[in-house]
């Protein structure tokens, strides 16, 4: 205010000084010059700034992303995308987005041939390419079939998009006529299952059908459960099934739905997933020829383990004798031979014959079944005694053909009583069943009483413990994929009930038996050859890496052993084919590579011949029917709606003719420009010119 007052005073003084000039033109000129000077000085003193604001629109572009994945080839999706993209005019920046971002000079360059869509990744890549500040709007034209959006927009992607601050407008290309396609939209089942336990499986089937559908669950290619779905109006129906895996290991769960005659693709009617089947409990059948201390301690040992389901039967009545009392007076029950050796056989992991002369019980006729069960991966233990092996007449039975020992008649009738100190063999010292561990103590303080004779170990068997005259006491062997063992004494219980009070605790007994049964049922710690796949779920053409590891009988890596990999699709209609042979390295490992075949479960099996024994191991690979992109047909506009709503954009799902081209919303902020007027050179020039002009005029007009 003071400055303005001063300026006015100066102006008044100037007027007062000039008012006596007779010529009004000269007076006005000088007054104007003085006024101009005052204004210029005021500008310097007050430092005024010229502020302008204007939107950034004129320099911004519309980014149009068109889905270029293979699913856009269905129906007229690609043509319609082209048509819509053209509406944005020549100034829009066009990109094709599939598994990578490709600039398009013209919509006609769009090819629906890319891999699986990554729409969010494509948007981000386009923003990077164009520059966020230059993007006026993003328009995404797609059928919504982005596998990564199937489960909704991830929190991470949502945060990235919101942070970018760009609205994404989406245009969903829905088909004019519904595509005929049944697809397995989702399979809900645990990737882990317990053997012989119920595994619930839920399958969502998308697509309409006016005919009943059958949904089938398969394990390693073999149907195990099915459900019939009747036609209804729902686009997604759910089949619920239950199955019970019968064996442990790396399996494949497949789900298939009936294919319609005119389906867009049948590749999505079948889904394959890895299923790891593990053992929750070990099921053991223990058959004893008679009650004894050995059977009692063995049964107590097994029952003490909560992970064991034990079915035990003791023969309570002698071979020759009946019991002459009313059956109501006893608790004897018939020996359920048929039930145990019939269908129930497959439910057991381990069968134990304890000093059991089974001939009188009609079991001989079930021996082929028992042998087949063992060869298929079961396990069989014979505990000796006076009624077992040669002394139990086993040499006349077919069981003699597949025990790890050959049976021959001996002068002592196959049983020799008397105390002896067992001796650990060289193999036994390293074998996982009998190798030493802290606290085991010295074998010389362990005694046994009575042992079976007439036993000769087979060439491929391993004798771990020997008795008098090197007779085999504990012998283990293989029968097909199964394992067998013979413990040729019925006095192992004395290890649980040490004679000497100062003897080591009974844990040696329990440890030995735990390790024996672990080896028999092929617990992972007791497997010689293992095969591991880097990933079990692959797509056709993928290169799968596999590692086979071989451990020798001495529990050291077996180096320099040839391992052969075979591959065959399940269910097996053709014999497996040899893939490769590799030699184990110093770590006992052999590395393989297998190119995944066509969709379905594939069994990969390695085999190796080592120390007289053929070892095998296998995994089942879940090979998808095709890349995910090829399995999706029905458009998924709701995924695009989510994307638009998340970023504040608009979503359209209309026919192209009715589609309003989205207005380019300039969401970018206004730009403010500030021009400091007082600091410009022309202000000083004006002051100088005004002063000069006034001085020159005053001189020429003769004024002072």
């Amino acid at each position, binding site marked *: 205010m003071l400055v303005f007052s001063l300026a006015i005073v100066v102006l008044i003084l100037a007027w007062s000084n000039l008012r006596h000039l007779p010529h009004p033109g000269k007076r006005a000129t000088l007054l104007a010059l003085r006024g101009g000077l005052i204004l210029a000085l005021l500008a310097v003193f007050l430092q005024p700034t010229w502020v302008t604001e204007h939107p950034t629109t004129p320099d911004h572009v519309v980014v149009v992303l068109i889905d270029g994945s293979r699913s856009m080839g269905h129906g007229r999706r690609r043509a319609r995308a082209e048509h819509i993209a053209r509406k944005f005019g020549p100034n829009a920046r066009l990109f094709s987005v599939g598994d990578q971002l490709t600039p398009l000079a013209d919509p006609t360059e769009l090819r629906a041939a890319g891999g699986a869509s990554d729409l969010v990744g494509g948007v981000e890549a386009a923003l990077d390419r164009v520059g966020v500040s230059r993007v006026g709007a993003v328009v995404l034209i797609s059928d919504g079939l982005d596998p990564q959006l199937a489960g909704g927009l991830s929190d991470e992607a949502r945060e990235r998009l919101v942070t970018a601050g760009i609205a994404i407008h989406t245009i969903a290309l829905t088909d004019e006529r519904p595509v005929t396609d049944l697809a397995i939209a989702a399979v809900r089942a645990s990737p882990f299952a317990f053997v012989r336990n119920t595994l619930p499986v839920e399958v969502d089937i998308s697509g309409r059908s006016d005919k009943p559908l059958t949904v089938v669950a398969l394990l390693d290619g073999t149907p195990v459960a099915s459900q019939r779905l009747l036609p209804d109006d729902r686009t997604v129906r759910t089949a619920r099934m239950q199955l019970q895996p019968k064996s442990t290991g790396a399996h494949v769960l497949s789900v298939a739905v009936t294919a319609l005659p005119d389906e867009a693709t049948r590749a999505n009617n079948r889904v394959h997933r890895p299923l790891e089947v593990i053992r929750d409990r070990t099921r053991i059948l223990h058959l004893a020829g008679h009650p004894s201390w050995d*059977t009692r301690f063995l*049964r107590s040992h097994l029952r003490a383990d909560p992970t064991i389901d034990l079915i035990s039967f003791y023969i309570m009545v002698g071979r020759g004798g009946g019991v002459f009392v009313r059956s109501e007076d006893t608790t004897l*029950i018939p020996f359920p031979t048929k039930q145990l050796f019939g269908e129930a056989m497959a439910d057991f992991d381990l069968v134990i014959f304890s000093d059991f002369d089974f001939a009188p019980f009609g079991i001989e006729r079930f021996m082929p079944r028992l042998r087949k069960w063992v060869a298929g991966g079961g396990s069989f233990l014979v505990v000796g005694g006076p009624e077992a092996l040669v002394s139990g007449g086993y040499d006349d039975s077919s069981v003699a053909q597949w025990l790890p020992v050959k049976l021959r008649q001996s002068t002592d009738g196959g049983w020799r009583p008397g105390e002896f100190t067992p001796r650990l063999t060289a193999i036994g010292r390293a074998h996982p069943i009998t190798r030493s561990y802290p606290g085991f103590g010295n074998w010389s303080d362990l005694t046994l009483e009575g042992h079976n004779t007439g036993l000769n170990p087979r060439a491929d068997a391993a004798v771990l413990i020997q008795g008098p005259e090197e007779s085999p006491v504990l012998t283990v062997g293989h029968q097909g994929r199964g394992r067998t063992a013979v413990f040729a004494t019925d006095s192992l219980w004395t290890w649980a009930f*040490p004679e000497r009070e100062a003897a080591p605790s009974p844990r040696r007994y329990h440890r030995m038996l735990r390790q024996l049964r672990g080896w028999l049922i092929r617990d992972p710690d007791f497997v010689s050859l293992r095969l591991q796949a880097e990933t079990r779920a692959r797509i056709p053409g993928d290169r799968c890496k596999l590692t086979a590891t071989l451990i020798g009988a001495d529990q050291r890596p077996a180096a320099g052993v040839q391992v052969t990999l075979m591959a065959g699709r399940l269910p097996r209609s053709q014999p497996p084919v040899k893939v490769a042979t590799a030699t184990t390295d110093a770590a006992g490992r052999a590395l393989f590579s297998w190119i995944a075949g066509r969709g379905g479960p594939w069994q990969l099996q390695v085999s190796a011949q080592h120390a007289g024994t053929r070892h095998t191991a296998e995994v089942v690979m879940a090979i998808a029917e095709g890349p995910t992109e090829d399995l999706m047909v029905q458009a998924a506009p709701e995924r695009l709606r989510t994307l638009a709503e998340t970023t504040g954009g608009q979503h359209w799902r209309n026919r192209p003719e009715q589609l309003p081209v989205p207005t380019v919303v300039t969401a970018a902020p206004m730009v403010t420009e500030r021009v400091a007027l007082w600091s410009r050179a022309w202000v000083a020039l004006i002051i100088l010119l005004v002063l000069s002009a006034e001085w020159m005029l005053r001189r020429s007009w003769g004024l002072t």
Partner: protein
Amino acid sequence: MVKLDSPQLFRFPLLVLAGNRALGSTSTTQMTRLRTHLTRGGLLLVDDIGRSGPSRRFDESIRKLIVRATGQPLVKIPLNDVVYRTFYRLRSAHGRRADVAVLWGAKIGKRWAVLYSQNDLHGAFSRARSGGYALPVLPGGEHQREQAWRLGINLVLYAVSLDYKDDHTHVGHLLRRRRGQ
């Protein structure tokens, strides 16, 4: 006959102790050996062989011994216990006498480590030199003797099979048989 401090003790998982008067003193070592025996799976069968009835002094000393050996007092074994049906189905636990209807016992874990009869089981089994039974069985006569034999067999089978007859397979079958199916 085996003594508690005998090296032979652990060759016999089933021990039988019979008497009709107070037990002599038991040393700490002997008690430790008995405890170890029972803990590792042994079974002690005690029989009161008093001629005219249970011996109070024997009973008192046995109860003290069992508490020291197992840490558990003797309890009555109900007639629905597996001991009474390991082979024969029994409704009482009579021996030569029928003074007490049930057995007594002490458990270690889930099994009976001590079984105690107050009815002179031995008396029912004992033979005279002539080959016949040495003592009359009262009051039930030969039927009671037969039941005593059955109890003896059950006890031995309990020693070597424990609760085998409690397995689901047996229980299910026996229940079906009882229902006449």
